């Protein structure tokens, strides 16, 4: 299980490729990999967004993400879990989050990936502040419901 909070931009597909290559002890055991990548849009609530700042609660964010992943690992018999989340200044089209899980079968992988992502969206302590194209800024007040 790996949890990463990053100030720097990242390529989720290159990271996933590298991570999976390094899981040599699991090669042959997993039959399913489910992946979610969240990317910054340039619009929200009917307004054009030029940039965003993502704040987090150092320590609690990592602790909460680890708990989510441990719970999902137990519930869905996951073989490996990777969660990467950006913080700091983010531009449209930048990846924000990567969740990847590996399991023997697809049902567990699909469901675990979804559950980790929905828990992250509703409980992990991150907050977005948007910079609008007209120069104003505002805190995003809530996430949309995923289910």
């Amino acid at each position: 299980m790996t949890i990463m909070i990053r100030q720097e931009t990242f390529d989720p597909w290159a990271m996933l490729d590298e991570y999976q290559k390094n899981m040599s002890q699991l090669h042959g055991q997993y039959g399913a990999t489910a992946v979610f990548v969240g990317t910054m849009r340039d619009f929200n609530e009917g307004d054009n967004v030029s940039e965003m700042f993502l704040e987090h609660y150092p320590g609690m964010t990592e602790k909460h993400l680890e708990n989510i992943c441990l719970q999902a690992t137990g519930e869905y018999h996951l073989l490996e879990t990777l969660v990467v989340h950006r913080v700091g200044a983010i531009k449209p089209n930048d990846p924000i989050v990567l969740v990847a899980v590996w399991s023997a079968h697809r049902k567990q992988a699909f469901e675990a990936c979804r559950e980790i992502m929905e828990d992250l969206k509703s409980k992990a302590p991150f907050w977005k502040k948007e910079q609008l194209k007209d120069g104003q800024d505002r805190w995003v007040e809530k996430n949309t419901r995923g289910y």
Partner: protein
Amino acid sequence: MAIYVKFFASMRDLMGDDRIIDTAIVQQNSINNVDDVWNYCADGKQLSANVLIAVNMDYVDAQNEVKDGDEVAFFPPVTGG
């Protein structure tokens, strides 16, 4: 020792900088739970029902007891991902 109070995101805009409540002040003001911490810091502001609270990085409610050395955080609904 002390109680360490943190505010994040829009709560920091509302409440200002983080606070440290010294042990002597905790005892003088009978600060026993999260609600007491809020009332000491809030200068009359109401604790909104949608504010989330953590003690030592675990979610709790406003009635949760606090003790010397605890870290108490107040923050708005989360918006990551």
